[in-house]
C-alpha cells in the first residue's frame, strides 16, 4: 500500500468532513433549536457559492469576497425565516419538508435566472493556489489545508458560541423551553431568526469554500443535502458534537473508500471482480454505514439529551 497516498487521502477526507460539518451544523442547529427541517439548506449552500463567485470577480479578491458574502447569505437566511419559515413552526415536519422542497425550486430557478445555467469557476489568489510540502515527498494544495484550518476555527467558534456565551445560553434555553424564555422577557422570535441566519451563514460558508475546488453549480445543493442528512442522522439529530464526529467519520470513509476499496477487495477476490465491485460499493458506503449505525442505535451516535 502507498502510505503517502493514504496520508494525503486522509487529509482530504478530513477536509471533506469539515465542509460537511459546516453544512450539517447549520442543519442540526436549526433542527435542534427551532425543531424545523430545512430541505432548502443545500440551496443556501449553493447560493453562498454563487454570491462569493460574483464578488470574487467584482472585488478581485477571494478572501474579501467570502467576508462580504457571509453577511449577505446570513441576511438571505434571515429573510427566508421571516417570510416563510416562521409560518411553519406550528406545523409538522412533513409540512416543513414539503414547503422547503418548494423553496428549493424557487431558489434554484432564481439562481439560474441570475447567473445562467452553467457553472462558474472561482479563481484563487496566488498565495492560496500553490502547494505545500508537508514532509519530503508529501505535497498538499494550500487551499485544502486552508479549508481544514477554516473548518476547525469555525467549529471551535461554534462550540464556544453555543456553550460559553450569553447568546448561546439563550439559544440552548430556547431549545428546551421557548415559552419560558419568552416569558422571561427575551425576544424569542428575533432569537430564532438569528439562529436560522447563523445556520444559513454556515451552509453558505461551506459553499464558498468548496467553489474554488469544484465550481459554483446549480445542482451542488441537491448533492450535499442528502450527505448532510446522513451526517446528522448518524450523529444524532440536534447534536452538535454528533454532527462533528459523524461529519469527519463520513468524510474519511467516503474519501478512503473511493481510493482504496479496490485494493482492499483485491486481497480476497480477483483484480477484475474488485475493480467492478469497488465503485458500486464505495458509492453506497456511507449509506451502508448509516444503516448499520441505525440498526444498532436508532437515535444516532449522540442523541441529544434535552427535548
Amino acid at each position, binding site marked *: 500500500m502507498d502510505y503517502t497516498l493514504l496520508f494525503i487521502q486522509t487529509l482530504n477526507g478530513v477536509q471533506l468532513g469539515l465542509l460537511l460539518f459546516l453544512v450539517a451544523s447549520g442543519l442540526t442547529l436549526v433542527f435542534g433549536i427551532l425543531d424545523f427541517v430545512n430541505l432548502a439548506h443545500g440551496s443556501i449552500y449553493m447560493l453562498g457559492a454563487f454570491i462569493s463567485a460574483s464578488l470574487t470577480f467584482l472585488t478581485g479578491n477571494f478572501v474579501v469576497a467570502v467576508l462580504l458574502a457571509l453577511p449577505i447569505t446570513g441576511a438571505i437566511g434571515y429573510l427566508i425565516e421571516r417570510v416563510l419559515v416562521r409560518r411553519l413552526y406550528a406545523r409538522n415536519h412533513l409540512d416543513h419538508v414539503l414547503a422547503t422542497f418548494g423553496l428549493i425550486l424557487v431558489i434554484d430557478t432564481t439562481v439560474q435566472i441570475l447567473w445562467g445555467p452553467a457553472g462558474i469557476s472561482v479563481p484563487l489568489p496566488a498565495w492560496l493556489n500553490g502547494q505545500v510540502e508537508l514532509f519530503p515527498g508529501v505535497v498538499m494544495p494550500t487551499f485544502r489545508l486552508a479549508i481544514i484550518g477554516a473548518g476547525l476555527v469555525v467549529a471551535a467558534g461554534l462550540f464556544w458560541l453555543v456553550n460559553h456565551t450569553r447568546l448561546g445560553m439563550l439559544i440552548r434555553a430556547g431549545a428546551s423551553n421557548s415559552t419560558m424564555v419568552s416569558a422571561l422577557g427575551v425576544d424569542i422570535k428575533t432569537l430564532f431568526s438569528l439562529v436560522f441566519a447563523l445556520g444559513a451563514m454556515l451552509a453558505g460558508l461551506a459553499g464558498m469554500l468548496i467553489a474554488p475546488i469544484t465550481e459554483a453549480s446549480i445542482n451542488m445543493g441537491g448533492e450535499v443535502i442528502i450527505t448532510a442528512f446522513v451526517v446528522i442522522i448518524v450523529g444524532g439529530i440536534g447534536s452538535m458534537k454528533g454532527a462533528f464526529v459523524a461529519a469527519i467519520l463520513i468524510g474519511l470513509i467516503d474519501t478512503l473508500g473511493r481510493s482504496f476499496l479496490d485494493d482492499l477487495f483485491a486481497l480476497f477476490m480477483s483484480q477484475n471482480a474488485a475493480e467492478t465491485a469497488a465503485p*458500486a460499493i464505495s*458509492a453506497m458506503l456511507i449509506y451502508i454505514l448509516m444503516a448499520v449505525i441505525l440498526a444498532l442505535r436508532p437515535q444516532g451516535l449522540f442523541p441529544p439529551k434535552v427535548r
Partner: protein
Amino acid sequence: MKTPLQAMTKTGWITAAVLLLLGVVPPLLMWMGNEFYLLLSTRLVILAVAAVSLNLILGYGGMASFGHAAFIGIGAYAMGIPVYHEFYGGAEAIASTNGWFQIGLAVGASALFALITGAISLRTKGVYFIMITMAFAQMVFYLFQSLDEYGGDDGLVIEMRSELPWINLDDPLQMYFLAFGTLLVTMLLVHLIVNSRFGMVLRVAKGNDERVVTLGYNTYLYRLTAYVIAGVIAGFAGWMMANFSSFISPSMTGWTRSGDLMFMVILGGTATALGPVLGAAAFVLIEEALSSVTVYWNLPFGLMLIGVVLFARGGLLGMLHGRRGDK
C-alpha cells in the same frame, strides 16, 4: 334498502367521473390525431399508480417516505438490464425480453429492497424516517450511477419493450390501457387493504401507536408489510415507466422525484382513494402547461407548492368538498 347507485357518496361519484374521464378522453384525443396527449396521459397514469401506492403508507399508515422513487428506479432497471444483456451478451442468467420474467424481477427486487430498508427505517419515527428513506433512495441513485456498463449517469436506451402475450407495448394505446388498468387494480387493492382488518390496525396505529401496541398488535410488522406492498406496486410502476419511455437513468430515483411523488399525494389529498390520482393529474398537467410557457417554470411551480402547504390543507379533494381539512 338502497341500490348501490343510491348508496354512492359524493366522493364516490367524483371518483367514478374522474376515472371515466381518464379512461375515455386520452384514447379519444389519440383517435383525433393528438398522440401527444395520450403519451402525456400515460406518464400521468403511471405516476398516479406510484402515488396511490405511496398514499397507502403516507396517507393511511402515517409513514412519510421521501424515497419512493427508489422503487420506480429499481423496477425500471429490472426491465432495462435483462433487455440490455439480451442484446449485448453477458449475464445470460437474466438476459431476457420476456415481460413476465422482468415483472418478476422488478417485483422481487422491490420487495427485497423494501424489506431491508423498511426493517431499518421503521425502527425510527417522524423526521428520522423522512431523512432515512431519502438517504436509502439516494443510495440506489449512486449505485445506478456507478454502473458504467448500463450507461452510468447518462442512463441506457432500451432496445426493445417487454414481450407479453395478447398485448403489444409498442402500440401507445395498448400501453395506455395497461397503465390505466393497473391504476384501477391498484386503487381497488389499496381500497380493499385499508378497509380490511389489516388496514384498520394500520390506520389506528397512525393515530395512536401505543394504544394499538397495548391491544397486542405488533404495529412494526403491520407497517413493514404495508411498506413492502407499496414498494412492490411502485416497482411495477417503474417497470411500466421503463417500457413507456424506452429509457432508464439514475435520475428516475433522484430525491426530487420522490419529492414530486410525495407532493402529488399531498396536493390531491392524503388518505383518500382519489386524492393521489387527482394530485398526479394536477401535477403533470400544471408542469406541462408551465414548462410550455417558460423555461423557468420551476419558479412559479415552487411558489405554488409552498402555497399549497401554507393554504390548501386537505388538498384538491378537500377543496372540492368546500371544507378546509385541518388535521
